[in-house]
């Protein structure tokens, strides 16, 4: 089966060019005269094709980091470059259009549009970037099929879906425009283990197809999918754990995969212990 997700060169390793480059980024919120410094002088580079994971305690600024890096929020200080574009220089409209073509989002709260069917949720975003209706419909159906959303479910409305189905649709929606970077904010936070695995598998496939993934998670098992885990606390990156490329399941036996995951888990838990997790 031809997959539009795999249109890029499969990435068995990341390239050295950063797709996201944050320099000296600070973000401060002010509420009733009280200032809260959420991000402080943060520097970060995410390489093209990388699967990066951000972890940290609650209130560390993980979601804010995701918002600032994706252009959904502006930093108070510092610069953010995404796909060779200084997003701080863009007008609100240009920034929105930039997000449309270069960024995909998977929200923690899923956030499907209630008024639209499953297929329309995906098509609304797809047709926004590509006016070739036939091509977009084909791609949307293909992606939905890949995550196990059959045609009957595609006609349903979000209120009629299970949590797992809804999140899989949300991931497909984030991928339909083939963005350079997929931002996923705790995509498995509301899912049971079975549905979590399905969503994480899809993100892994996307990443294997060459797209960069930046995921925020609290879940250690989910973090194991990443090439690198960044630990954020008090608004700054306190450390990083390079796990390396996870063995693609298609090229190894199940035993190899389990052994690989166990090695990665040991390394990650050690790192998290070190960070005071």
């Amino acid at each position: 089966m031809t997959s539009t997700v795999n249109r890029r060169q499969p990435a068995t390793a990341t390239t050295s060019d950063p797709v996201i480059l944050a320099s000296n980024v600070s973000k401060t919120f002010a509420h009733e005269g009280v200032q809260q410094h959420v991000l402080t002088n943060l520097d970060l580079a995410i390489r093209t094709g990388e699967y990066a994971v951000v972890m940290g305690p609650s209130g560390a600024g993980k979601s804010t980091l995701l918002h600032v890096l994706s252009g959904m929020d502006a930093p108070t200080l510092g610069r953010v470059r995404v796909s060779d574009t200084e997003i701080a220089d863009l007008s609100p409209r240009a920034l929105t259009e930039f997000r449309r073509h270069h960024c995909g989002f998977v929200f923690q709260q899923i956030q499907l549009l209630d008024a639209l069917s499953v297929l329309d949720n995906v098509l609304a975003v797809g047709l926004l970037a590509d006016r070739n209706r036939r091509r977009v419909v084909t791609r949307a159906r293909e992606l939905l099929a890949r995550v196990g959303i059959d045609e009957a479910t595609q006609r349903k409305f979000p209120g009629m879906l299970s949590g797992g189905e809804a999140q899989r649709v949300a991931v497909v929606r984030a991928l339909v425009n083939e963005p350079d970077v997929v931002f996923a904010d705790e995509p498995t936070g509301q899912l049971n283990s079975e549905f979590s695995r399905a969503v994480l598998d899809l993100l892994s496939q996307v990443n294997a197809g060459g797209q960069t993934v930046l995921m925020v998670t609290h879940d250690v098992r989910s973090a194991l999918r990443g090439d690198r885990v960044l630990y954020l606390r008090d608004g700054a990156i306190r450390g990083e754990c390079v796990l390396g490329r996870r063995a693609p399941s298609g090229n190894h036996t199940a035993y190899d995969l389990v052994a690989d995951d166990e090695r990665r888990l040991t390394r990650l838990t050690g790192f998290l212990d070190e960070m005071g997790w």
Partner: protein
Amino acid sequence: MVTVGAIGLLVRRYLRKGRAQLIVVGLLAAFAGAMLNLAALCAFRYPQMIDEQAARLRTPELQVLAASAVATRAVDVLRAESAVTTVESTQRLGEYATLPLGDATVDSLVVYLDLDNPSYLGQTTVLERDDAGVTDPVYLPYLFKSNGGYAVGDDFTITTPRGTRTFHVAGFTTNLYLGFLTMGAIGIGLPSEGYAALADSPQPPYPTSIVQARIGDKAAINAISARVAEQLSAANDTMPPTWTWDWEMLRTAALTGPGIYAVSLVGFTLVVVLVVLMVVWFWIRGTIANDLRALGVLATVGTPARQVLAAFALPPAIVVAIGALAGVAVSYAAVPVVATSLAGQTGLPWSPGVDVVSGLVIAALLALCALALAGLAALRVLRLRPVEALAGGHRSRSFRRTLLPLAGTRGNLHLLLGIKQGLAHRAQSVMVLGVLVVVSFAAMASASLFTNAVSDRHGFMQLLVGDLGEVAAVATQDADRGDLLERIDAIPGVQRAVYKDYLQGTVGGVRGGLVIMDDFAAQRYSSVFEGREPKHPNEIALGAPLADQAGVGLGDHVELSVGPRSQDYLVVGKIATVQYAGMRANVTTGGYQRLVPDHAHHDIDIQLADDASPAAVANQVSTVAGDRLFSVTNQRQSLDSQFAVYLQMMRILAWGILTVTVLVTGLVVGLMVSTLLAAERSSFGVRKALGFTGSQLLRQLVASYLPLAVAGAVVGCVIGWFLVPRLLGVSLTSIGLANASFTIAPALAVGIALVLIAVAGLTAALGASPLLRREALDLMAG
């Protein structure tokens, strides 16, 4: 206590989340309260004021103006009537004249009143008096101040066929019979010295008597009035023509203006109340649908459903009551406008005080309507099962069929998404549709009133009075009738001059006006809408209301009486006219001479060519035949002046209704958009995060209501286009205009629809404008 606390929280949450609805319902209730209060003042307080004035001025039940030589006939008839308790005959001076009234003029019989020697009945009150240093002082009816803009000290020149008289305004008066614009006679007050000087002038006015009578048995007024009128009508060979009015006739005429205001305001209040009720209905239904889980919790902990019902039903009722009371209070600011408009016709200053009881009744009435509907809308909570409520009920969006699927529907993506959003909020969409249908229908009614009556006033007047020539004249008793007509016919611009007498008689026992002509075919415009005009001496055509009251139809025979004589006539036609309120009959000269054999014509109807000036022709008529004429009237100008008050009233109503229509459209669409924005704010934030720009979201939001606004406006205008002219026609049938036909230009209907659509679109765009400014995260955070 816990339950009450929970209910209180529910109400607070419901009011906090429904602030937009709260404001709209309050504002609309204020509109309704204001209009209803003005209507109540016009319908109840104005008649009360007139009755009080009548009692204070000892206004008689019957008043007759006649040349002193024939007035004794009226006095004799009145003294013979057992129901008459008092008769008073006062000698005054009178003449036909042209009076300046602001920028216009009015032709009328002028009766000069000696203010220092007042009559006992039908008194005149001086409202303002400042004659210090004023030479030739004159006291004008109050309508000259309210309608003509006169002030003390202004010059005032009266023009008669025999010359002019110049006075200076020294004050204003109130007199019910002689201070009324459309009754045909106006009382001008003079001090004794001025009155004596006028009587001794080289060309003095005619001796004229005012005969007044108090009639104890009110039921007898009409019959006595008919007998007096017939006696005087039979003596028509004497000049000048006579006027006979009774109090009921005057009161009815005086209450026409307030009646028009009251009926129109009540009609439009109904439209606004309908909109208020629709907003309340959808507000409560929407709140219940969104708060089903909270309601489920309340039901689970044993909260009585009636308490929940009350929590939903009471707040809208209270808001409506407060809004209505505010509207009632504000409406008093508009009272001077209405009072001035009415005083321009009746000559009665009016400043009703604040009527607290009436205001409370109006507020209570509107609040009761809101309470009843809110209770009805909230009835669902009585039937709600806790399990269903806790599960969030059956979400309306979980319909199974995808309408307009993006995969297979061609068209603009944002338009499609907007329409789909509108479909997902079906209740609000239906409300927008309904409101637009109602307001566009009201706008059509208002525009029809404006175009048929106000902007084409000559067409409207012709519709009302039909066959009147532009200039009229009254021949003196000794004038050579044939020679007079020839002289007038020869004047450039005169198309035709014919004798057309206006008299009175009794048809089938019902008093009415008589129009006498040699040949009714000489009219440019026939008012007959069924059958034909009378051609032979034994034929008669009747106004529709007169025929109805006399109980006769085409082909029937009816008895016509003038004075002591009666004859039998065949009804050959029905007339549509507002003259004599439709209580009019057409009879040929030969037919009338069957009753009054020596009848000679005196009223001349002068029809002009289209390009002729009525004023110039009237001057020419005075020049070439002034010595043979008792009066010359610029009928066009006179009608203009008389109708100006009504037209002004219609103008105020039409613009008022159009303004409120536009405001209601804006308010309701604004409410819907802000409600949708509040409900879907997070969804719009997600869209923006996914790459939809603010302007694309704005287009989607506008598109979710605009197609419905377009449909509502089109449907309302189409219904209005078909129904409004017919409704107007039916309403005028009741005052004798059975053949009235109104039209609304298709371009006007299209224009109204476009204006309302534009207002809806602009309001929707304005309401949705936060989408342009607010960023994705901001929206998602709510």
